[in-house]
Structures are given as C-alpha cells and as structure tokens.
C-alpha cells in the first residue's frame, strides 16, 4: 500500500528510507540501513535480541511498525562506541567475559543502558529486573550481571557517557 519516504533518526544521524506501513523497524535497521547489530531471533517479543532504544526506552524492533518510529530518536548498539573506543558498558562486557555467542549482547547492552541512564546505582535485583526481557541462550547471566554492575560503578567513577 502507500509508500512513503520516511525520516528515521538513528544513532544521531538522519536517514531517509522508502517504507510501506507493514514494514517492521528491525527490517529498516538491518536491511535498509545495514545496521545488523540488532538481532532477529524469536520475532515474538520473548527474547529481546531485537531490542533498541526508542526515545530512550527499550523496545522490541521486531514488533514495532517502522511507520510508528518515524522522527523518534532510535539508538542501536552501533551508536554506542565512539570511533574505536567502546562504550563503558560494552567494555565491561568484554572485561567481565559477559559474551559467549554474542547474539543477545546488543539487546542486553541496550537494556542495561536504559537502566543505567535512569538509575546509576542499581542493585543486583534491579539489574536482573531490567534485563528480564532479554534471554541469553548460552545462559551466561551471572557474568552479564557482573558486567552491568561493573559498568555502573565505572560510570559513577567518572567514565564518560
């Protein structure tokens, strides 16, 4: 049906993409913009691999109609690093070995970012609850929680962003 040229604000940049109403946000990100950091897995809102931040809120890009995300600020995992310097949350995931196959990592990191943006000093329980919508098929949850705790401490002690 009606095609349109839509403007998406992704990772601080403006992108014009031709879309139709039935196109999903994840397909705009991955297929039109080449941002394949956002993962497609269950397609049903169970796993959280497709999580992106829309206006700062963790959202399933696989259940979001792209047309409803026009003009909103979208952050994907590609928007976190500055040049070759990883974001402190990404660095903490590396340092703590919180990555096994890596498939859940972009979603985990974005859910963690949404948490830490609002709550710089979360308890372990608060971290668990913030990541409850993200599944790790390798079951490496303990190190993920360690990484978020460590990132929070790092950010509080003067890490950037």
């Amino acid at each position, binding site marked *: *049906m*009606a095609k349109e040229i839509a403007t998406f604000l992704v990772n601080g940049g403006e992108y014009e993409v031709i879309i*139709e*109403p*039935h*196109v*999903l946000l994840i*397909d705009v990100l991955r297929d039109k913009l080449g941002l394949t950091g956002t993962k497609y897995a269950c*397609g*049903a*809102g*169970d796993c*959280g691999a497709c*999580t992106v931040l829309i206006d700062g*809120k*963790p*959202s*399933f890009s696989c*259940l*979001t*109609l792209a*047309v*409803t995300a026009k003009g909103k600020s979208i952050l994907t995992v590609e928007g976190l690093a500055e040049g070759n310097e990883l974001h402190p949350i990404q660095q903490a995931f590396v340092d703590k070995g919180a990555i096994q196959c890596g498939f859940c990592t972009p979603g985990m990191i974005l*859910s963690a970012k*949404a948490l830490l943006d609002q709550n710089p000093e979360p308890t372990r329980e608060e971290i668990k*609850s*913030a*990541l*409850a*919508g993200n*599944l790790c098929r390798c079951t490496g949850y303990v190190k993920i929680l360690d990484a978020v705790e460590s990132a929070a401490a790092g950010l509080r002690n003067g890490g950037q962003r």
Partner: protein
Amino acid sequence: MHRVLLPFEFAEPTSVAEVIELVDGEKARPLAGGVDLVLRMRLRQVVPDRVVSLQKVPGLDYVQADAGALRFGALATLRQIERAPEVRDRWPLLAEAIGCIVSVQTKVMGTAVGNLCVGTPASDVAPALYALGARVKIAGRQGVREIPIEEFFVDAGKTAVGRNEIVTEIVVPVPLLGSTGAFLKLSKTSEDIAKVNAAVMVTVSGDTCTTARIALGSVAPTPLRAMEAERVLQGRPLSAKAIVEAAEAACEAVAPISDVRSTAAYRKEMVRVLVRDALARAVLRVPAAKEG
C-alpha cells in the same frame, strides 16, 4: 511465524472520534502498543485490511489518581502504571500484578488497555482489576458507555468492544479503608503467561472481614470472580480455617481445561493453593494499627 507482515492500510488519526469511524469491522484493528497485534499479524492469526493507530491521539497516555479513583487512558503503558508512585502507594495490587509481567520491553510498549482488549483469560492485569472493582469506558458513535470489568470479558478472545468502538479509559475506585490485597501467578517460566493466577482484595474491620473479592485467571474462557469463596469469608475473622475453606470453595467452583501449559486437574488444585496463599499474604499486609 512469518518474517514479514502482509500489507495493510495504515491510519493515524488524531481524535477518538476519527478512530471510532475507522475501526469499522473485523478487518480494521486498533493499534496501541502493538506487542500483541503485531505478533498476531506475524502469526497470521489476524490479517487486518486496516490498522488504526491510537498513538497520535493526544491525551490518552495519562495515569491520574484523585480522591475517588485511579484513571488511566488507552495509551498508558504497563510500565507507566506499574511505576506510578500513586499506584504503588494506593493500588499496590495493580502494581504487583503488572510486576508479574517481567519483560521491560513488553511493559514499555504494551498498554494495560491493550492487555485487556486481547481478551485473554490469562491476563495478569485483569484479575487485579476484577478484585479492585474496576470499570471500563468504551467510546462509540453514541458516546461513552461505562461497564464493570466483569461485563467486559465475554469469551476467550472476545470482549464487549463492538464495531466502531474503542476502550478509552479504565477507572479503578479507591479501595475501602482497611483493605489489602495480593496477586499470585503460577507459570512455566517467569516470562510465560499464567497457568493460573489469582488476585484477592479483603477489607478488615476490627477482626472481621467485611468485604472480599477473589478473582482468578486462566481457569475459564474469561477471568472470573470466585463468589462462593468470597461469601465464605464475609463477616468472619480471616482465620487460617476461614482461608482454607475459601480456598476450597474457589477450587470447587472452577472447571478449567487442559492445554499446552497445564492440565485441568493441576489447574484446579492450584486454584486452591493460590487462593489460600494470596489470602494469607493479604492478611499479613493488614495494617497492625487501625488507620486514622
């Protein structure tokens, strides 16, 4: 599960009146948060010709509390309601029930009204709203009608919302003084929907239970009140014996089905357990000193 959706016409009206005109039949679906609708479109369980987004209608995303009631609009998200200080303070049962939906993304995107409009008896929000005596406002061409939530759920997947109608608001009265409640959910994993869930609200005056509302989910085509169990408690102290009797009455009253999540026999037995435990939990929450 399909990777892409089938094409549809998309409408983004800016008033409730326009939305009502556009949702003119089975093939026209309102979209709030989309967590259920888009999923069911992927599954081809729903193949709409037209999707009518409410997202551009101003003034539907409120959560407001005053002396008489809590009100939230069709676009109030589960997360917004769960975290609202007034909800946590005065309607903690509702926050507790929403808390049993664990995925942050689901709660950030999904609305409470959307959760109800799915019409599933496994809703975690619905039993809490049954126990709290909530009412549903439905806007249509003839204006707005308001019905008790018990009349909203008609059958599995079927609600009282008709053609050219949408739910605009949920009204939850302030609980009576001395009321406490509890919500319990039993599920395969914490992110799955309920095998059985139960919400209770009891009002205690002196030693006596003056009102009791007990609601169950996932044991019938709609959520339901366990009225026999409520009657067992009324006018009695909430003793361990009374609680066991009420739980027994609730168990006797239900006739659940077997499906992929559980068996009828297990569900029935778990009604007894959840009602017993929820009542016990509610009793523990009765304030020790009388409230002034």
